């Protein structure tokens, strides 16, 4: 993982995302292999001062209200006094729970618990935040707010490890991604690398093509789609796209753009896990 980035771990249900998180937190133990966080072996207490954890569907001691809960978790880091109280106020405002801080967590909705879950994960101002489905159970506005918080944290230089199967959300949030399937990382890289078609497909878009040019384009391109006046031609590589573009321009066509074909994370994911099972 790169420092200061949002790293996403995606995978189908049962692929091992939560187990990976538990390994990182020392809640379960590896049957083989090893890992390190900030140079310390997994499970060590040494790095826990510097990490935060946001569980999926969190449940907390329900006799406590939001402030008491954060005070409890903060005290486990040795925080107290004004430092802790200021941090609690900042976090509750950050996750939109300040106005409901006096209510016992027993009466919180799932979305509210999720917000408090994020706040408790940030109580120690961690360098690394590990989050399991942080927007699960949130309404669309809540999900946007949490995503904004995560992006703000990245801008502040924090490193974030996200587990989720919400691929669109991961695509918009993450700088790099690993796709996990049956406990094995089957694809990993920066979002740019992963979403750029593996075979290097490029798409050239033209306007003002006459019928001959369209026929010519169909004979040299992998595929030609049209949308109004525009023709989009897909090529295996950049050179073929450039050559075809030059030919079309010479024939009087207008070249709009040549761009690498961009896949969605969903397409990459389905390809990586071997398609949609029947």
């Amino acid at each position, binding site marked *: 993982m790169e420092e200061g980035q949002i790293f996403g771990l995606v995978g189908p249900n049962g692929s091992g995302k939560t187990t990976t998180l*538990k390994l990182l*937190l*020392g*809640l*379960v*133990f590896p049957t083989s292999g090893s890992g390190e966080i900030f140079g310390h072996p997994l499970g060590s*207490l040494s790095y*826990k*001062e510097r*990490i*935060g*954890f946001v*569980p999926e569907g*969190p*449940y*907390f*001691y329900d*006799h*406590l209200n939001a402030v008491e809960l954060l005070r*409890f*978790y903060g*005290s*486990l*880091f*040795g925080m107290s006094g004004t430092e802790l109280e200021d941090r609690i106020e900042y976090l509750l405002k950050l996750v939109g729970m300040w106005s409901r801080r006096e209510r016992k967590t027993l009466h919180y909705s799932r979305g509210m618990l999720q917000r408090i*879950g994020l706040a*408790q*994960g940030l109580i*120690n101002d961690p360098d690394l935040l*590990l989050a399991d489905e942080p927007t699960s159970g949130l309404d669309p506005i809540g999900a946007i707010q949490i995503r904004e918080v995560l992006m703000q944290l990245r801008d502040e230089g924090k490193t974030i490890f996200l587990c989720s199967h919400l691929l669109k959300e991961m695509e918009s949030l993450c700088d790099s991604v690993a796709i996990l399937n049956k406990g094995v990382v089957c694809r990993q890289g920066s979002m740019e690398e992963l979403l750029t078609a593996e075979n290097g497909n490029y798409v050239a878009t033209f306007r003002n093509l006459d019928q001959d040019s369209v026929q010519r384009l169909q004979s040299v391109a992998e595929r030609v789609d049209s949308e109004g006046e525009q023709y989009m031609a897909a090529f295996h590589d950049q050179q073929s796209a450039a050559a075809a573009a030059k030919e079309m321009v010479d024939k009087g066509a207008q070249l709009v753009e040549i761009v690498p074909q961009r896949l969605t994370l969903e397409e990459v994911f389905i390809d990586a896990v071997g398609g949609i099972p029947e």
Partner: protein
Amino acid sequence: MSAIWRIAKATFHEALRRRFLNGILVFAILIIGSSWAFTYLQPGAELKMLIDIGLGAIRFFGMLIAIFVGVRLIPDELEKQTIHTLLAKPVTRAQFLLGKFFGGVATVITNVALMGLAFVIVYTIKAPQFREMSPEEGPTISMEFMAPNILKAIGLTCFELLVLTAIAVVASAIFSWVLASIFSFFIYFVGQMADFLRELASPEHGADTASSIVFGVLYRILPHFEIFDIRESILKDNFVPWSLLGNVTGQAIIYVVIILMIGYLVFNEREV
């Protein structure tokens, strides 16, 4: 130390809110209060009944509270997954285990204290009528050491339940809470019959080699809960020496330390 204290405090507040606990406590206090009602008995028998029912109820209901609270402390954390957020913080498993244990013990002792208070109130109201009895009403009852002995008995019950809570908490870290409850009840009831186990292990009482080994081992490893019961000394108004209290509480503490160490060794390897 701070983490243990924080977890114990949260555990205590969480445990006190359990409805079944309040139910047991109210029922226990009603039973203790009902010992007031045995006025139709001879004064000596009435006092015996008062002591037997009062202190017996504290021990019995204290045992129920210790087991039911103890066996749920860790499984609840596992089921609700609150343990994940706790162990993701700079908290060791030993601190977690000790925090849960001390929180459970605080709950049990608070309940014993409330039951004890109810009994002391009943005793304080009833005692003068036995003390000031005229010879026509019956034989004189010696009550010189009774009041301090009652306090000592309540104190010993706390130590007895300390051992039982440790057993329940550690059993629940190893087994399911249902199995842990059965295990804890079994240990408690067998531990009440330590002398009987010794007899079963004795070749003089006809034990064969295998029985002698099995019952001998059980006699040595199980806690002897009957040593915490001093009701007989109270009724005879014998002074309960501080050396006896020191010996019994010392045994209880050593036992608790050993149980918690076993619990830590198991829990430290457990995936949560």
